[in-house]
């Protein structure tokens, strides 16, 4: 079993009309054994920027701590929050620093940039950025997620419709992957508010 499949994960981020949604599954496992069903993979950097980290949980936790540290330093120096594009470059640089001994994580970055234009991107474990205008996926269920998102996605969805689409896409995909699942966690961010919801799917 690959090191990326040690803990199991599923992450998706999708763009709507002046909003974005980022969602993850809730399982923390050690290969075939499930340890917890309330593990959070989506982390806040600032009010309008979130990062989801799939792959090895220990590296996700270490990387998250390093990113928060770098962002806090940036806030002290620049007296403002980081733009999502800048943050994506930061993550990419941090990952490439470890080119020959990488963090076993694939991040999904989602944020609202200038003028509240939604921004999403993903990258591989050594920081190769992949910008997208519609959706990005990551984790052990990524192949299913690509298929489901491709069929369900429509441009310019309103927040409620976006939430519904992301939820259905996530639950459908994790049902086909034994290493991810046990519910879902969806974060919907608009310029004025942030909605967090827990999904109940097939609990197995």
């Amino acid at each position: 079993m690959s090191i990326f499949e040690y803990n199991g994960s599923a992450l998706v981020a999708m763009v709507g009309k002046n909003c974005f949604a980022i969602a993850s599954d809730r399982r923390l496992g050690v290969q075939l054994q499930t340890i917890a069903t309330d593990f959070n993979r989506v982390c806040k950097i600032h009010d309008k920027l979130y990062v989801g980290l799939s792959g090895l949980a220990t590296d996700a936790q270490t990387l998250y701590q390093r990113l928060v540290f770098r962002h806090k330093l940036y806030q002290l120096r620049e007296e403002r929050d980081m733009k999502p594009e800048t943050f994506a470059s930061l993550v990419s640089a941090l990952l490439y620093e470890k080119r020959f001994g990488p963090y076993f994580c694939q991040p999904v970055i989602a944020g609202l940039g200038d003028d509240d234009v939604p921004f999403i991107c993903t990258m591989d474990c050594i920081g190769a950025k992949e910008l997208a205008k519609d959706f990005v996926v990551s984790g052990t269920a990524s192949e299913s997620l690509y298929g489901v998102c491709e069929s369900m996605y429509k441009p310019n969805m309103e927040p409620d419709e976006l939430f519904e689409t992301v939820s259905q896409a996530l639950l459908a995909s994790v049902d086909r992957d034994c290493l991810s699942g046990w519910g879902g966690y969806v974060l919907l961010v608009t310029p004025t508010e942030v909605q967090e919801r827990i999904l109940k799917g097939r609990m197995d």
Partner: protein
Amino acid sequence: MECVFGLVGDGFALIVADTSAVHSILVHKSDEDKVMLLDSHKLLGASGEGGDRVQFTEYIQKNVHLYQFRNGIPLTTAAAANFTRGELATALRKNPYSVNILLAGYDKDIGPSLYYIDYIATLHKIEKGAFGYGSYFCLSMMDRHYHSGMSLQEAIDLVDKCITEIRTRLVVAPPNFVIKIVDKDGARQHAWRESVKNDKVATA
């Protein structure tokens, strides 16, 4: 064949560990204490390679004491758990420790808590958890019988059910277990479950 498991009850947390010190087919002793009293209100149950287990847990214990001496107040359970994870994570890519840890503590304003720390430094706060071959039996027993806010008697009954299951179904089951508890009155040994008594060696 080492088993460590733990759970959180109403105002207390329990950690149970087997007490065999084994090298290949030889049992050196059957009364090895693997649950360390980290400070007055914390327990650290560890399983893993012999040298690493003792060295790492003693290192954590001394650093927790040092913090208390320097700052005049004890660490919270969450802080101690994050410190432990940080040490494991730093050592992971240099000189890894093969130690799995369950850290239980009681804080005055938060109550009892239990943390799961993998040997690769995955940290998660849990209500019930287990390590080792015994986990295959304990986790299922706890999934069936555990509920939040169990009384001490109910929790001890559940622990005894788990121990019975391990003794019945694990091929090289450890004969003896120690049960330690942490609550508002502190961390202390609660009971032993022995099926093989260690005779004291007569002095010359």
